[in-house]
Each structure stands twice: as C-alpha cells, then as structure tokens.
C-alpha cells in the first residue's frame, strides 16, 4: 500500500478495506477513502449501516437458497408463481437476470457455485443436496438448467441431469445460440452448430 506513515491510521484502514474489494486498485481505494472523508457524517453512517445490514439481515432462503431478508423468500412465497417448475442458476445475480427477462414465472434454486473439475470442486461444495430434497417433495415436474454455457456450467447441468433425470423429473437446458448483435463470421463452431440445431420457423 502506498499510504505512508504520515497518513492517519483510520484513513489507512479504510483505504485497505476498499482495496480488498473486487476491481478496486490502490489508487481507486485512495480516492474512495478521501471521498468518504469529505462526505457528511450522516452519509458516512448511512453507508456503514447499509454494509452492516447486508451482513446482518440478509440470509439464504431455506427453500431456494436465494439471498433474502424474509424466509422463505418472496419468490417461494408468491402463490401466483408456477410451483411445478424450478430454474437452477449458479448465483443470486442470475436470478435477477432471469427476472429482468420477464419470461419466467416459476421458482428458482441457487447453487452458489458450479462444479469445477479443473479446481477439484465437486457436488458437496455446491447446494445440490437441497435440490434433491426439494424434488423429493414431488411437486416439481420440470427442472430448467440455467447454468452458464461454459465447460463448468455444462458439467453441472449434465451432473444434475444424471442425478434427477432417472427419477422422472423433466430436465431442460436453456437454448444456446447466437446473441443479439453477433457476427456469424466470428462465432465459434459449437455455438453455430447449436444455433442451427435449435433453429425455429419464422
């Protein structure tokens, strides 16, 4: 850290705390810390309280493991949602992305991770057991695999398919193809092949 001995200790501590955040380098950390120094005490304590609240009031939904303040979460409580479909995602942020699309009215299940053979991350490191327990209740008829279309996401999807498929639950996978604004010329063969397979009549 570039902070010299002349910098008061509280500022040094704040700079270091910001520096630990993702995407924040030493210069940005300094700038943020000195910005806080200039703000009113009110604003600063609001920020501190917001940080504390996130840690103290947010927990995982006991059903879908999404982040929530109330347990069960608003998705799991909502009686207008289709309780026979569950969409499996890697991270809580993926839930927001799917909600934004506006095309989904079922439930969710957040794995909080993904199988990673290259790093030795197996099923016990992600929330798969909880999914199995949910499926045992028998209400869920379709599982939508919405993990990322990466090697790890695909491995996770195949694993869950293998785990729950034989139990008679329908397992589907998000379609893979060309994103809006894509260039065919630069598209990799696998994506293009899948886009062709998944073509639809217009």
């Amino acid at each position, binding site marked *: 850290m570039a902070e010299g001995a002349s910098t008061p200790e509280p500022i040094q501590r704040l700079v270091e705390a910001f520096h630990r955040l993702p995407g924040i380098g030493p210069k940005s950390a300094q700038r943020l810390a000195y910005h806080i120094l200039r703000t009113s005490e009110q604003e600063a304590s609001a920020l501190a309280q917001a940080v504390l609240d996130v840690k103290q009031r947010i927990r995982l939904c006991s059903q879908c493991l999404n982040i929530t303040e109330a347990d069960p979460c608003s998705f799991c409580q909502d009686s207008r949602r289709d309780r026979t479909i569950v969409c499996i995602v890697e991270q809580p942020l993926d839930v927001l992305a799917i909600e934004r699309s506006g095309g989904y009215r079922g439930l969710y299940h957040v794995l909080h991770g993904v199988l990673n053979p290259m790093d030795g991350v197996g099923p*016990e490191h992600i929330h*798969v057991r909880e999914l*199995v327990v949910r499926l045992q209740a028998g209400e869920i008829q379709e599982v939508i695999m919405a993990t990322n279309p990466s090697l790890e996401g695909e491995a996770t999807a195949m*694993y869950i398919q293998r785990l729950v498929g034989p139990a*008679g639950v329908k397992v589907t996978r998000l379609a893979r193809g060309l994103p809006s604004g894509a260039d065919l010329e630069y598209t990799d*063969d696998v994506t293009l092949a899948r886009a062709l397979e998944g073509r639809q009549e217009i």
Partner: protein
Amino acid sequence: MPAPARSYSTEAIILRRRNLGEADSIFTLFSRTEGKFDAVARGVRKAKSHMRGHLEPLTRVQVQVARGRSLDVLTQAETAAAHRRLKDDLDRLNMGLYCAELVDRFTIDRVEQRALYDLLADALEAMEAGASAVAVRYFEFHLLAITGYEPQVAACAACHAHLPEEETLFSAPAGGLVCRACRHRAESGRLLGIRAIKVLRYARTATIQEFDGLRLDAALAHDLQAALAGLVHQVIDRELNTVRYMDALGRADRTPALTANHVQSASPEPETPEP
C-alpha cells in the same frame, strides 16, 4: 541479434482456464511448437468477446499471441477441433480434463514436447470418437514413457532379469514389474496377473484405437488403473484436482438420491469410470 517477433501464431490445446479480474481469463495452453505456456485473454468473459467460444478447455485452437512483458496476450483464436461430443458427455469430459491436468503437471513452461502434444491430441480425438476409460490407461502409459518414466513391463525394473509368466509384483517406487528375487527390496506394490501384464505390454506397441478396442472386465480395469495411477502419483506426488473431483462425483452417485412419490429408482447411477 534481431529482436524476437512481437507476436506468433501457434496451434495449441487449452489445458485450463482461470479468471483474472473482472473480465479477463488466463489460459494455460499446450502448443505443439511452444510447449506449455500461460496467456491472458482480455475481456474474454464479456458477452461481446469474439474469442470466448473458441477458448474452452480441451479445445484445440489456432491462436495468435502477442508477447507481453510478464504474460503473453491472446489476440485471436479460431477453433481447430471443438471436441463437442466429448464435452457433451460427463464421463468423457472428466477423462479429457484428467488427461489435460496430467499434461499440465508433467510439463514445465516453454519446453517443446511434440510427442506429448500428439499423444494428447490423439487421446482427445479418440474420446471424441467414443473411446472408453481404457484409452485413458493408454494415455497414462505413454505420458509416463514420453516424460522419462516408462513403466518397466518387459523385464524386472530392478535387476532387468527375465520375468516368468506368472503373477508379478508391480511396484510404483521401483517403476514397474519386479521379479521374485528383487521383491523384498520393493517398498510397496500390488500383484498383477498375467492378463494385466500382457495388456500393459500391448500398450507399448498398439495405437490408442487398437488399445481402446480391448474389452477389459472390471477387476482387470481396476488393476491397470491402480498400477498406472500409482506410477503417476510416484512422479507428481500430489493429488490431482480432477481425481478429487471424480471421487466426489462417485461418492455423490453412490448416495441414494431420490426416493419419493414419482421416483422409481433410488440410485441414479450406473458407474463412473475410474480416472
């Protein structure tokens, strides 16, 4: 002396990927001409990236690389072989990643290893075409041979004496089969039957396709797997991530999963292949 070229083009197989910062990834590539090296792909995790789909582990790619100060930078990538069928099958995907991790652990940076490159490319091609775990044994055997640890299966690894046609001790510390006279000096090992020994000898001369054509019963496959895994462990002396992962998958498979209402079968799994 002329300055080295600022960029170069090479064919490589992607061994692994790890994320860097917000949108970059570092790839470990194994190139036919450059050996193993790390290179960063900037912005590759953004949806707009042109290279993204070309840079998945186990893909064989043609890449353009710019020399960087500490880390080279991938500037272009074009798939040569995507190995899609391999990646669409959980077991074969695991086999492929295991082979890639072995190559990663058995090589050092920037040392050209054409024979090993060809072996990995052949193995991935064979798995793409449907090869079984038997092909992985072939891969292990030849990986050890190419890197200077060829399993000694023709004569005694210790005294080079002729081996009679009988059950023989296979000792990882000794580097292969050990005759009766030397057996007391071998630190550890497992007894291999005549069939297992013949299969190991066949690996030396067969092609991967011929070898994969062998139909081995479970006990024999397990013997070979344990023998070769022992040698691999002897060399790298640490657990492989992919092995840890496959063990975890195996454990999860053996736990009864679903047992309710519309559920007929409790154990969903036939069998996971050994690494």
